[in-house]
């Protein structure tokens, strides 16, 4: 304990070995362990990272002169743009295509002889190897006019159910089931259908629910078609938006 060494030092200085420490019931001022040591013991990555960074800093020589302060105007090498810069014509789009190196010129002796056909690449490699990025045409997303309604669409409104879901790449195997935890809570909240007030889901004006929001099994609809609905409603009522435009019965 820290206070023990203090008492020993005081006893030695006063040449009074009989001095003993008494706490009188008070909490010791000094802690039993340094909190910093606990943290570094629990998280060794922190200590290792700081040590590694310090080693790197020692290996890199510091600049002879202190760097110029960031505040207080542009650096001395700053050259202001010319006054007519804004009115200058644009140099045009930048060519981002990958420069293909020019083939090396063949030696003169070989020009007379017919060139052998280049070896064909292994078909398996040619199929698997994708083309270089620059040669793959990418669809450019359209720019919306500033005044259009779509341009002002709310961020989360853009996340309406997609019209066509991509075909899953894994036909065999059961889809992952949420057994509990965050995903189950999330799916449960999402399955309640009605989104939170600030981000209402855009509904189509056709009077029909999106397919993803229809909860009645198709077999039940077929049964209602065959036997008739006991409530007198249309068998297809489950497909319609409540309060929406009435469709054919």
């Amino acid at each position, binding site marked *: 304990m820290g206070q023990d060494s203090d008492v020993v030092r005081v006893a030695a200085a006063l040449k009074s070995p009989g001095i003993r420490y008494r706490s009188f019931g008070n909490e010791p001022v000094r802690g039993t362990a340094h909190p910093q040591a606990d943290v570094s013991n629990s998280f060794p990555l922190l200590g290792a990272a700081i040590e590694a960074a310090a080693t790197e800093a020692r290996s890199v020589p510091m600049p002879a002169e202190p760097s110029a302060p960031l505040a207080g105007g542009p650096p001395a090498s700053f050259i202001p743009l010319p006054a007519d810069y804004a009115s200058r014509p644009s140099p045009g789009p930048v060519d981002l295509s990958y420069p293909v190196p020019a083939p090396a010129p063949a030696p003169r002796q070989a020009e007379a002889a017919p060139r052998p056909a280049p070896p064909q690449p292994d078909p398996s490699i040619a199929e698997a190897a994708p083309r270089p990025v620059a040669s793959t045409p990418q669809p450019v997303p359209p720019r919306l006019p500033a005044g259009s309604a779509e341009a002002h669409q709310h961020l989360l409104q853009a996340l309406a159910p997609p019209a066509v879901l*991509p075909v899953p790449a894994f036909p065999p195997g059961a889809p992952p089931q949420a057994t509990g935890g965050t995903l189950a809570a999330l799916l449960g909240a999402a399955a309640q259908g009605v989104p939170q007030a600030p981000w209402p889901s855009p509904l189509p004006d056709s009077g029909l629910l999106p397919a993803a929001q229809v909860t009645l099994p198709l077999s039940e609809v077929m049964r209602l078609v065959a036997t008739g609905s006991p409530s007198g409603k249309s068998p297809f009522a489950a497909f319609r938006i409540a309060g929406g435009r009435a469709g054919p019965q």
Partner: protein
Amino acid sequence: MPLICVAAPKGGVGKTTLAANLAEALHRAGRCVLAIDFDPQNALRLHFGLPVRDGAGFVTELPQRPDWQELVRHTACGVGLLPHGTNDIHAALRLNAALEREPELLLAPLRAMLADPALVVVADLPPGPSHPLHLLAPIADLVVAVLLADATSAALVPEIDSGRFLGTGTMAALHTGRVRVVLNQVDPQSRLSRAVAEALARHLGPRLLGAVCRDEAVAEALAAQHLLHELAPESAAALDIEEIAQGIAALLPAPAEAAVP
């Protein structure tokens, strides 16, 4: 044999953390797993307990066409690990140009690793569009796209839907079918996080592979250089990741089936 790419249209979403913990969970589920770090941040190794100063990796050796089998590190949890390696900016740019000229520098050794039918490869990719993602997406069995339950991630969902995220041109629709999304750091206490997560769940439907709740234990596990299951196996995030690993395992062929040519 299966290749699982863990990618993200933006950085800072916990992609590497998820990749490391998914690899470990798949290993505990009885799979032989190799985790490969394609991200120049070279952070995957830290989750598996490698020292900060250990900067060795396969990328620095790539121009010499090394045998990747010899570079695999054996970790305490049993997952094989190929760290990216520490690289400076000039070497990284040169390597990028070399990969653009000759994609086989990367693809040939990866295909050699994938030839092992019992092996599951979990690839941690750099955030955003990247050369490794462009090369690996066409041969991946599953691309796990990690998003946060925030507005920026929501704004990037069209990039995933359209296939622009994978950068696969006219094959985008095909590759998009292999994409599953994981929502990370979902905070049930946050109104915005909840709203975004619910909107994404409705939008993604079956493409939502799982959700991981915000949990301090995740960050503490990395700081302690342990995987989450080692440090806090009963934490909420650990259970969420376990569930995602089960979902992935259900999508993959069973190990016995994988041995059949």
